[in-house]
C-alpha cells in the first residue's frame, strides 16, 4: 500500500491516507521542509478525492510519484488488431488495413441484438396500438382476446427488447444513464424515454387488465390506451435513430427508414396477433390491418429504392452482398405474408402462416437495413 491509498495494481482503495495527507514534491528531502505541492487526502480517482476537489479527473489519473495509472481508463488495452497484413509489393492486392485506412466513417459497433430489438420493439409497439384500438372499438365482447393478447405481446416484447438493448451496451450496468437526461436532439435518448413509458404502461395494462376489481381494470384500460399511444413512436423511432447517423446508407434514406420501419412494425404486430385464435370480428380487424401494413411495406421499399437511385453507391449498399440478399428475402417474405393474409379471408387455417411470415419479413427488413449501413461505410 502506498501512502495515498492506491495499491500496486493501480486499483483504488477508498481509504484515507495516514499521517498528514500531504505529498512532498521530492521524496526523501533529507529533512528540508519543502512545501507540499498538492494536498491529497484521498486515493487518486476515488469519489472522495473528486468530492474534495483535490484534482480534476479525466478518468485516467496518474499518480506521478509512483508513475502509476488508476481510475476509470486504467484498464484500456490495445483491443483488436486490424487483420491481414502482407501482400508486400503486390499492388493488385488490398489488405484489410489498407481498406480501413481509406474508410471515412466508422462502421457501427452494434451486433445482432440491435436489429433484433428493432424488430421486437416495433412489433410490441404495433401490437399495443392494435390492442388499444380494439379496446376503444369494444371488439371481442367480454372475452377481449385481442385486447389482452396485444397487451401481453407488448409487455413480452418490451421485456425481451430491453434485455437485448442492455446486452448490447458496452457497460450494461449503466443502462439507466439513458434516463439521466432528456435530450431531444438524440433519437436514442427520446427512444429510451418512449421505451420506459411504453414498458410501464404495457405492464400495467397486461397485469391489471385481468383484475377482478373494477377500479383496477379501469386503471389497466387507461394504461392500455397510454401503451397504444406510446406504441406508435415505438414503431418508428428506430428509423429516425438510424436516419440521424453519418452512415451513408442510413443518412441518405433518412426520410424513408421511419416509414419503412413503421410499416414493418405494423406488419409484425399484426403478425404476432395472427398467431392467436380470436373471435371472427377480431380476426377480421387484425387481417385488415395486416394486409394494409404489408402492402404499405412493399410500396415504401419500392419508393425508397427509387429515391436512392440518385446515389448509386448508397443504392448499391442495399442491393449488393448480404444486405442485398436480406433485402430481397425481406421483400419476398412480406409479399408472401401479404398473400397469405389475403388468402386467410377464405382459409382461416392460413392465419398462423401469414403471421409467421410477417414476423420473419420484419426481422429480415431490420437485418438488411443494418447490414446496408455497415457495407456503405466500406471504401468503394
Amino acid at each position, binding site marked *: 500500500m502506498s501512502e495515498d491509498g492506491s495499491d500496486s495494481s493501480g486499483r483504488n482503495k477508498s481509504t484515507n491516507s495516514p499521517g498528514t495527507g500531504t505529498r512532498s514534491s521530492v521524496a526523501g528531502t533529507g529533512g528540508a521542509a519543502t512545501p507540499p505541492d498538492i494536498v491529497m487526502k484521498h486515493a487518486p480517482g476515488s469519489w472522495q478525492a473528486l468530492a474534495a476537489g483535490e484534482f480534476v479527473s*479525466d478518468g485516467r489519473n496518474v499518480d506521478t510519484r509512483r508513475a502509476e495509472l488508476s481510475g476509470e481508463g486504467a484498464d484500456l488495452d490495445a*483491443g*483488436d488488431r486490424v487483420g491481414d497484413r502482407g501482400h508486400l509489393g503486390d499492388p493488385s492486392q488490398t489488405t484489410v488495413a489498407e481498406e480501413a485506412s481509406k474508410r*471515412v466513417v466508422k462502421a457501427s459497433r452494434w451486433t445482432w441484438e440491435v436489429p433484433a430489438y428493432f424488430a421486437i420493439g416495433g412489433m410490441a409497439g404495433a401490437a399495443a396500438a392494435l390492442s388499444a384500438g380494439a379496446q376503444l*372499438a369494444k371488439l371481442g365482447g367480454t372475452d377481449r382476446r385481442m385486447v389482452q393478447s396485444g397487451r401481453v405481446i407488448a409487455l413480452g416484447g418490451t421485456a425481451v427488447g430491453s434485455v437485448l438493448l442492455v446486452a448490447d451496451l458496452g457497460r450494461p450496468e449503466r443502462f439507466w444513464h439513458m434516463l439521466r437526461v432528456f435530450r431531444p436532439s438524440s433519437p436514442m435518448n427520446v427512444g429510451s424515454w418512449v421505451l420506459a413509458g411504453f414498458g410501464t404502461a404495457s405492464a400495467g395494462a397486461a397485469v391489471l387488465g385481468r383484475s377482478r376489481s373494477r377500479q383496477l381494470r379501469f386503471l389497466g384500460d387507461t394504461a392500455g390506451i397510454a401503451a397504444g399511444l406510446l406504441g406508435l413512436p415505438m414503431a418508428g423511432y428506430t428509423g429516425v435513430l438510424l436516419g*440521424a447517423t453519418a452512415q451513408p446508407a442510413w443518412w441518405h434514406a433518412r426520410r424513408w427508414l421511419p416509414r419503412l420501419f413503421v410499416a414493418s412494425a405494423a406488419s409484425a404486430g399484426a403478425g404476432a396477433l395472427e398467431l392467436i385464435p380470436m373471435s371472427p*370480428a377480431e380476426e377480421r380487424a387484425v387481417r385488415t390491418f395486416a394486409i394494409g401494413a404489408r402492402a404499405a411495406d412493399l410500396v415504401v421499399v419500392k419508393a425508397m429504392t427509387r429515391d436512392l437511385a440518385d446515389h448509386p453507391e448508397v443504392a448499391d449498399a442495399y442491393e449488393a452482398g448480404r444486405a442485398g440478399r436480406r433485402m430481397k428475402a425481406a421483400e419476398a417474405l412480406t409479399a408472401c405474408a401479404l398473400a397469405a393474409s389475403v388468402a386467410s379471408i377464405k382459409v382461416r387455417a392460413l392465419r398462423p402462416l401469414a403471421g409467421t411470415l410477417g414476423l420473419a419479413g420484419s426481422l429480415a427488413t431490420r437485418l438488411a437495413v443494418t447490414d446496408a449501413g455497415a457495407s456503405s461505410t466500406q471504401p468503394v
Partner: protein
Amino acid sequence: MRTTTANDPVTGEARRVGFFTDTSVCIGCKACEVACKQWNQLPDDGFSLTAKSFDNTIELGATTWRHVGFIERDEPVSGQETNLGDPFSWLFIADSCKHCEDAGCLDNCPTGALVRTEYDTVYVQSDICNGCGTCVVACPFGVIDRHPTDGRAWKCTMCYDRLKDDETPACAQACPTEAIAFGELDELRQRADVRLAELHDRGVTEAQLYGADDDNLPGTRGLHAFYLLLDSPDVYSLPTNPVAPQNTVNESWKSMAGALGAMAAGVAVAMLSGGRTR
C-alpha cells in the same frame, strides 16, 4: 442545434481553443502520435505492418486519438521537387477529433456523456458513457470509437486535463515544426488565412483549408480542429461534405409523424372493418 458552452467554474471564463493543422509543414515524424499515447497513457496499437504504407497506425480509434496518415502517391505537388525520375509526392495529415461546431456525436449522445466544455471542445465523460455506440455511427469523420473490451467510447479530449493547467495539448507541444498549432480559435483562423495566401502566392495552388469556418464546411458549421490540405479532402480520407446528422433529424421525425398518422388511421379502419356486422 447549439450546445451552450460551460464557463470555467474557477475563472468564470470561456475560451474557444482549437488546433490548426498545417499539413504543408508536417514532416510525418509522428511525435504528436507518440506524445498523445504517452500523455493519455494509451496502449500501443500492436506491432504489425500494413505492408502498403509507411504508416502502420491505419486509423483513429478508441486508443488512437492522434493519427498521422501517410499518403504516398505518384502525383506531384506544385513547388515540390523530387530527385526521382517519376512524379511523386508524400502527403501527411496529423489527424484527430475535429471538435466540430455542430458535433454529431455530442447531440446524438443519449446519456449526456458527451459535453461541450468551457474550452468549446467536445469531451466524453468516461464515468457517464455506457457504451451504447450511437456516437460511433453519428460521427461523420469516423473518429470516435467504442473500445472492444472496455466498452466505452473514447476520443481526443484536446488534453482537457492539460488545458485545465493552462498547458498546451500534448500533440501540439511535441510537434517539432508547429504543424499542429494550438491556440485561440479566432487567431488560428487568421493565421490559416495568412498561410494559405502565402502558399497560393508561391504557386501551391492545391493548398486549401478544410473546416476553417462555417462557410467552408457548412454541414458541421466548421471545425475547431481544422486543416490546411495539399489536395482535396477525399485524398486524405476526409469527407468532402460532412453533415452533422442531427441537423437533418427533423426530416426523419416528420416522416415518422406522417407514417404514424397513417398507422393510426389504419388501426381505425381495421377496427371499423372488424366491428361491421356480417
